[in-house]
């Protein structure tokens, strides 16, 4: 899922400075699951925003709403018109939602309420971890299912660097060395051959370095 976290309040206060009426718009997709932009977070942000404005003596009307998703056009339909009633719509969806509102709803000013951070898994309540970098050319079949692109600090393709000690990454002892994990997994799976073969230089175009990415499935096109 896409992981996000609320932007610092000062940043949100800054971007809404002088505004009289805003809509805090949540999303029940990924950001709700990772407790960054669902109904609860919408109410917290709205309340905090009112409080912050109260302290500075400037009134603000903050309305709250949460859509099923913000990345499908049909859900954004009502916002096309209603969005114009606000000085701004603070979207608490991931960056996709913000962009999509900007694209679909002309005349609506949309602001980001969260920082979209990574594609991750929910390790336990309140803890999420990056697992995928969306690099567009998956090598997980060669690495025991563990991603060196997303989970190695240097995105190494050919084994652990000299900083891997005791299964930990050199950049932070809290970070496990994914190459140690790959080594263990491949050894367990009797696929050591993968560790001996040189992985050639990667083509980074599918990772977005070839320009914005797009996917088309012909059979679904209308």
């Amino acid at each position: 899922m896409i992981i996000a976290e609320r932007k610092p309040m000062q940043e949100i206060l800054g971007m809404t400075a002088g505004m009289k009426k805003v809509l805090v718009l949540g999303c029940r997709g990924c950001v709700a699951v990772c407790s960054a932009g669902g109904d609860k977070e919408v109410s917290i942000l709205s309340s905090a925003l009112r409080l912050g404005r109260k302290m500075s003596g400037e009134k603000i009307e903050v309305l709250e709403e949460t859509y099923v998703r913000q990345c499908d056009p049909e859900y954004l339909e009502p916002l096309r018109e209603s969005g114009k009633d606000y000085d701004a719509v603070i979207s608490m969806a991931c960056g996709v939602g913000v962009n999509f509102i900007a694209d679909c709803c002309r005349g609506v000013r949309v602001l980001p309420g969260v920082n979209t951070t990574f594609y991750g898994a929910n390790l336990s309540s309140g803890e999420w971890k990056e697992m995928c970098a969306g690099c567009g050319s998956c090598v997980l079949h060669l690495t025991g299912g563990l991603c060196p692109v997303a989970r190695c600090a240097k995105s190494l393709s050919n084994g652990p660097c000299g900083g891997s000690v005791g299964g930990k990454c050199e950049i932070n002892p809290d970070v496990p060395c994914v190459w140690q994990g790959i080594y263990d997994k491949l050894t367990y799976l009797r696929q050591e051959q993968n560790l001996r073969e040189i992985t050639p230089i990667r083509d980074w175009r599918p990772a977005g370095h070839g320009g914005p990415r797009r996917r088309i499935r012909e059979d679904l096109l209308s």
Partner: protein
Amino acid sequence: MVAEMSISDPKIIAFCCNYTASVDADALKAAGLVSENFELVRLPCTGRLEVVQILDALDNGAEAVFVTGCLVDECHNLTGSRRASKRVQYVKGILEELDIDPGRVEMFFAGRGETEPVVEAAREMKGRVTGMEPIHK
């Protein structure tokens, strides 16, 4: 000037769990506090308390909010007061981000049916916000 305004009679809201809400107006009066300034919200358990409730309390008139729950290891619902404590902590973080003194919210723990710690908490919170710049001008 705003900065010169200060709170003399702050409104304070207390969220108390069923087991720590034994305080009443008399007890407050006995402690020399103006009971009308206090509003007590009784919850079955502070574990039920939501972050937004504390924020809304501040937004809706309170100059300070405190929460009283069971002693950490003696919570009737095992982890209720611990959860509440974390949420209070989270609210403090938001207040800090908003440049509001995080001391305006606090978590207190009290034994079952004990009045004194709750009265103390009320006194403490009044002391804290007296003299601060008011939220509600």
